[in-house]
């Protein structure tokens, strides 16, 4: 089984090579989420950085640079690299900023990577519910950031694509079709919003990767993925895309009937890490949600990352100290019984 190490390897696959490899180390997968579970190997410790960010008006770039430093990200690692930031812009509505990754978070992430020497920072998104990519940018507020900072933008729904075998097979999808924009990037960063979700329980950095899948091949919404199994596809897509970093915008998240119609909640945090599983697990705890009770996180544990708090090295704030219980709706099955016990 292929393992992802906590620290970046000096040698080994680049992102481009990983995505091109036809069968780059198939991960052992459970036979569907309801199938038997193998004894979980110990996954390396993962570091996750939590920072307080009481509003979008604070110096988010400085927070992210602190986060990178805490995570051991060096200029040497970033210099000369092409970075692709993937925000969550699933269905922007001008009056509901809490649906999407805030544009100032994207701006700060871009500035942070550029200050570490990135050759380029681009933004890419394949909005799940809206086909007008430019209206998505306008209504999310991201258009102004892209214009001000001259950040290239890729509409992942309609750009050129390539297909790769689904080697992890949690879902029955035989292959995954991905945007060529991923191959162009040296580093892919999932920049998610901290939200509840009425099908998945939560939507964080791993579920955010649904927005990588081109609508031209998967539809609007990406119904192919829903029929193949939301939880299963979260795992397969995360394994295939293998984001290098995950950032979760929890400054203002969404509680209740996420991912669109829920209510804003001021968590006042940014969560960052190299391993999206650990970042999502930590984010879930901050939301007052037990990652062990989120199917895709439980299955990902030990395979794609780690969710156990004993194997997550918390940098910055402690999750328990910034915990703010997101409202859950009892008649939504995916949100039932997932509350994190209060110690």
């Amino acid at each position, binding site marked *: 089984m292929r393992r992802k190490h906590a620290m970046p390897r000096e040698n080994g696959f680049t992102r481009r090579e990983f995505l091109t490899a036809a069968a780059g180390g198939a991960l052992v997968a459970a036979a569907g989420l309801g199938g038997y579970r193998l004894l979980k190997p110990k996954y390396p410790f993962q570091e996750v950085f939590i920072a307080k960010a009481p509003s979008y008006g604070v110096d988010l770039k400085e927070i992210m640079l602190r986060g990178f430093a805490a995570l051991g990200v060096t200029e040497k690692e970033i210099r000369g690299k092409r970075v692709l930031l993937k925000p969550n812009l699933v269905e922007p509505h001008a009056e509901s900023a809490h649906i999407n990754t805030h544009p100032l978070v994207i701006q700060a992430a871009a500035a942070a990577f550029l200050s570490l020497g990135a050759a380029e920072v681009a933004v890419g998104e394949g909005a799940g519910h809206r086909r*007008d990519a*430019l209206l998505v940018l306008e209504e999310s507020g991201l258009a102004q950031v892209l214009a001000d900072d001259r950040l290239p933008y890729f509409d992942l729904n309609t750009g050129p694509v390539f297909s790769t075998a689904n080697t992890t097979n949690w879902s029955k999808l035989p292959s995954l079709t991905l945007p060529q924009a991923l191959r162009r990037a040296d580093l892919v960063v999932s920049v998610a919003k901290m939200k509840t979700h009425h099908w998945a329980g939560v939507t964080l950095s791993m579920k955010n990767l649904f927005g990588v899948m081109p609508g031209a091949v998967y539809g609007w919404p990406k119904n192919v993925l829903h029929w193949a199994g939301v939880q299963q596809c979260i795992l397969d897509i995360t394994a295939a895309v293998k984001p290098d970093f995950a950032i979760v915008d929890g400054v203002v998240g969404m509680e209740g009937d996420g991912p669109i119609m829920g209510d804003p909640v001021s968590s006042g945090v940014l969560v960052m890490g190299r391993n999206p599983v650990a970042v999502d697990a930590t984010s879930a705890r901050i939301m007052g949600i037990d990652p062990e009770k989120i199917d895709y996180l439980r299955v990902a544990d030990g395979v794609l990352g780690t969710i156990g708090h004993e194997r997550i090295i918390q940098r910055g704030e402690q999750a328990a100290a910034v915990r703010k219980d997101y409202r859950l709706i009892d008649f939504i099955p995916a949100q039932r019984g997932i509350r994190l016990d209060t110690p």
Partner: protein
Amino acid sequence: MTLSESLQDALAAIGEHARPDGGFAMSVKDESRADATAWAALAFEAAGEGASLVGKACARLAALQAPDGRVPILPGHPEACWPTSLALLAWLPLPEFANNAAKAAAFLLSFTGKHFKRRPDSPMAHDPAIKGWPWIADTHSWVEPTSLAMAALRAAGRGGEPRVAEAARMLLDRQLPDGGWNYGNTAAFGTTLLPVPESSGHALAALAGLVPKERVAASLDYVRREAARVRAPLAASWIIMGLKAWGEAPADKDAMVEESLALQSRYGAYDPALLAQLVTAALFSRSPLYAAYRGS
């Protein structure tokens, strides 16, 4: 008819995306794609120009057509057959592609999404049993592919088919209570969802002439309001086409198109599919789409 300079520029920009295979690509560096190819043909047809380009584009679409009549977005993705409707519309003005058009129409009439009886405990409010057309095979039917399929079949003289009538019922079922449509869900877990202009324009256009105006009055109001503010190309195009299909048009329709084209200075050059939809909206009364929505 003399085209405005900006429409001429748009057509020229579309033409720059022509590929050696006759199709059109979304970017000048890429391979051709069925949707860009069909939209390019439709735009030139509306403008009454580029006969050679149109012929080659339609030939490329014919080369992409599968034996069962579907036209996939890309070779190797037969399941992503939503461009079939666009190809049918592009072929209809050209008699030499009559067989291709007939096969595409036959495919559309035989093809639908995954449908099922609504469960009493379903969290979704719409009726999932009413058939329309999906984006991708083996998925549910949604608003925009249904709208385009209805347009294509009506333009092909098949507007009287029971599938078209059922699709109209489907669109009405997916209409939001306060007007407008989104991709095709009305409510989830008891919460009404929100409309978006691009889907609303598609659905309005598809229903023109098929249902009384009062059935879509709130949606027309919604789209009229959006016309005042939206200039992003896809949504603006379908706001115009949705209203025009009902015999209306934004008072500043031409200005809308010009302003949308001018936004390329902010967003960068539009891909040919977006340009073509703006051209088609600007010249809607000359487009095969208009014949579909107004004539049958």
